[in-house]
């Protein structure tokens, strides 16, 4: 122990205070940086030196700079970001779709189809006059317009979702690349073994993980080198500093499948924005979109059936009022395909969708997709028609024959609104009469059409049109309401967790201000100590000068 040793202690104190001041300044500088964790200087007592029989302290050392970080909160944050990403996407699409059903402001379908049937009342009251017939055609056209506009608004939102999925995938790939790059840097820095963890890089990576979590569901685990592996649907997205690109592929329904590492992982993604978008698509398709199409198909069918049985002022009969329903088909077979599909008897239509499947011995079975009932079975002959429920479908060999597991689907609903239109252009062809010899005063058929709005429709489960439509609106409202409630809950949870994280890791300016003064004072004290030591040495040197002088 020497007097000069005091300089070393003073120096260590100066350095420690300087390191603490630097860290404090860094904390203050990053007060608004998202994902930044407050850092603290870890101070230790330096090795003591012996002084006679006892040990004397040797100053202070900076043993490390540690970030305030709770791995448990971080993992919860990732989970909650995934939940919030899902409910946000779900709620966004559903609230867009529910705006389409603007019946509370009289812009929905209920007003226009009631207007349409009311116009039939007016024709029934004045079967011989033209103005009421012209009005009926206008009301029918407006029903068609509203239905088409509603469908196109829903499908536009729906198709936008496909674009959103592609956008999310692009973002995921960018984030994955960034995370992989950070993995590389972190391993490199921490491998040096210089001074613990690469705090700032880890903060950055955690922040990217949170962003990734709001986009997609994933699992992750770290290794001892500090590198993080991220898997989606049990395929690696990020491993070390390498990534696999996530990609999308349009499937036969026109929707997007998610492909990672040559594997379809779509069904594994249920959370994050991607999971929410996929779930929203299926909810919208099976709920409001299907419902609306069924309702319109049912109006088309019932009105046409009655109308074609009546007579116009010009004595013609058998005229459809709306464009007749058409079938849309899809073939999933390597060899065969549906060559024609037509409605042979619209009165027998159930307005359900059907799937025709084949077994290994080329026997077909037709299943009603809504009821799950098998409605027809038989053996396949290429080109022979298959008939069921007023529908006739012909499947024929193409590049090959049918094989076990082949499936074909037939739907009267898919194009129900797309093909919808008023077939009658000449008011005289409006079939108000039930006879061609009692023109023009016979209004029996118009009466039946007017009363159709009060009739329970078998295809709609025995509901009237208005009841069925009310059900669709209530369903879409419930879906959207539930999604928005979940979103509020998830947002509150996320904000709670972010609070917890900020409480643990966030920078408090007050605290840093206190630290600033504290370390300023300790720096000043250390400097003072060096000055005192200098004076002590001056004293010693003065003694020498005095004795020799």
């Amino acid at each position, binding site marked *: 122990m020497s007097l000069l040793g005091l300089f070393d202690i003073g120096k260590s104190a100066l350095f420690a205070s300087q390191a603490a001041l630097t860290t404090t300044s860094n904390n203050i500088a990053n*007060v*608004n940086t998202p994902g930044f964790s407050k850092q603290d200087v870890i101070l230790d007592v330096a090795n003591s030196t012996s002084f006679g029989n006892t040990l004397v302290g040797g100053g202070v050392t900076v043993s490390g700079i540690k970030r305030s970080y709770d791995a448990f909160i971080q993992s919860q944050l990732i989970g909650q970001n995934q939940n919030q990403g899902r409910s946000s996407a779900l709620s966004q699409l559903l609230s867009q779709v*529910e705006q389409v*059903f*603007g*019946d*509370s402001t009289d812009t*929905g379908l*209920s*007003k226009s189809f*009631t207007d349409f*049937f*009311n116009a039939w*009342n*007016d024709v*029934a*009251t*004045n*079967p*011989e*006059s033209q103005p009421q017939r012209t009005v009926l055609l206008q009301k029918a056209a407006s029903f068609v317009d509203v239905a088409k506009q509603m469908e196109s608004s829903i499908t536009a939102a729906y198709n936008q979702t496909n674009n959103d999925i592609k956008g999310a995938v692009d973002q995921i790939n960018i984030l994955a690349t960034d995370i992989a790059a950070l993995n590389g840097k972190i391993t490199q820095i921490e491998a040096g073994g210089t001074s613990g963890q690469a705090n700032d890089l880890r903060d950055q990576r955690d922040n990217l993980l949170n962003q990734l979590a709001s986009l997609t569901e994933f699992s992750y685990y770290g290794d001892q080198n500090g590198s993080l592996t991220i898997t989606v649907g049990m395929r690696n997205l990020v491993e070390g500093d390498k990534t696999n690109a996530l990609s999308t592929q349009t499937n036969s329904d026109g929707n997007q499948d998610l492909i990672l590492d040559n594997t379809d992982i779509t069904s594994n993604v249920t959370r994050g924005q991607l999971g929410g978008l996929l779930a929203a698509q299926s909810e919208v398709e099976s709920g409001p979109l299907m419902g609306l199409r069924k309702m319109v198909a049912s109006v088309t069918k019932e009105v046409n059936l009655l109308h074609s049985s009546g007579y116009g002022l010009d004595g013609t009969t058998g005229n459809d009022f709306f464009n007749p329903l058409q079938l849309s088909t899809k073939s999933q077979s390597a060899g065969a395909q549906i060559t024609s599909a037509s409605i042979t008897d619209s009165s027998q239509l159930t307005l359900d969708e059907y799937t025709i499947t084949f077994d290994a011995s080329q026997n077909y079975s037709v299943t009603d997709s809504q009821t799950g009932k098998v409605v027809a079975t038989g053996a396949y002959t290429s080109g022979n028609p298959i008939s069921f429920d007023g529908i006739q479908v012909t499947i024929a060999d193409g590049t090959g024959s049918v094989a076990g597991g082949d499936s074909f689907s037939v739907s009267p609903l898919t194009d129900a609104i797309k093909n919808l239109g008023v077939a009658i252009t000449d008011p005289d062809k409006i079939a108000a*009469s039930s006879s061609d010899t*009692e*023109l*023009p*005063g*016979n*209004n*029996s058929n118009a*009466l039946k059409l*007017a*009363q159709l*709005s*009060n009739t329970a429709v078998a295809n709609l489960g025995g509901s009237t049109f*208005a*009841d069925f439509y*009310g*059900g669709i*609106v*209530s*369903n*879409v*409202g*419930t879906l*959207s*309401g539930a999604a*928005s409630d979940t979103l509020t809950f998830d947002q509150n949870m996320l904000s709670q967790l*972010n*609070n917890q994280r*900020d*409480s*643990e*890791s*966030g*920078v*408090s*300016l*007050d605290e840093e*201000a*206190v630290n600033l003064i504290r370390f300023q004072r300790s720096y000043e004290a250390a400097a003072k100590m060096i000055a005192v030591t200098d004076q002590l040495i001056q004293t010693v040197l003065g003694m020498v000068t005095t004795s020799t002088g």
Partner: protein
Amino acid sequence: MNVMRVSTMMVYAQMAKAMQDAASQLADANTQLATGKKINKPSDDPAGEAQAIDYKVSIQTNTQYENNMQQANIFLDATDKVFTSAADTLSNLKDLASAGINNQTQETKDANSQQAAGYRDFLLGLANTKVGNRYLFSGFKTDQQAFTFNAVTNTFDYNGDLGSIQVPIDANSSMATNVQGSTAFRAGLGGTMPAALSDGTPVSYTQAKDPVTGVNTITVEIGNVGDPDYDTFRVTNVMDIANVVSFAWKNQNVDGTALDPSADISQEKAQHRMDALDSVIDAARSQVLAQQAEVGARGDVMNDQKTRFDQMNLSLESARAKIEDADINQTYVDMQQASVALQALQSSAAKVLSTSLLDFLQ
């Protein structure tokens, strides 16, 4: 006690979220006030919205039924007025038929013949009344005159049918808006008809009804076959009756030929014809009055129905309003509340956010 560490970002983030929440509540209340509606999208109240749609469709449909009845009333009112005039005219015709042709001057005879022809033409006009595009009394053949004169048979033919034009007056029932001309202006007999005229000459009335058109033909036979004053003629409607009366005043058949070569027998036959028609005119008049009563009854039913719809729409409307419309007072209070909460937050934010140790360090 576990004291939570408060970081600067937390204070800002919490304050921002609290203000967002309050602002969104204020915006909700404001939307309700602006639209006057509690339900602005289905998710605001899914079950309520379905009910509101149901109520609105019912109101719209009921209003349509009221419109139907209003239109039906136009036709029925016109029909009622036609019947009033027809009944009056038939009274006048009866007076003319029972005036007695004997001892009348030629001038009176001619005038009476003219008068009866006038009644005939007036009745024809009434039977061919047209409202809008519709001949009221032609059944379904609304584009054709109900009756036209047939120059070959010298009678009035019915061109309509038995069509009854119904309009819906509620979900399950409808109401006829017309009376077929073959029924309304029928020459028909009810009850027992006299077997002899006032001078004791025997008379018989035979009726035959066409099931397709509803046209009722009465063949009148006066006297016994073989007698010099034996006479027979047919009528199917009130115009025919007036026509026979008109020609009888001229001692003629409806084709303009003399009733008999002998002037005396001609006059006797003419007197007999008018005598025989007396009860037929009575029957036709009561037929018209009965139809008028029937039309009046339809009007009463529709009035009752309209009152019922008015009341129903009122209660449906108030049920709809209860579900869909915002309670303006309540909403206003809600908005005040949200607004006060937001202001409180803003002023507390101003205090909390400006508090920093740094402000006190020199």
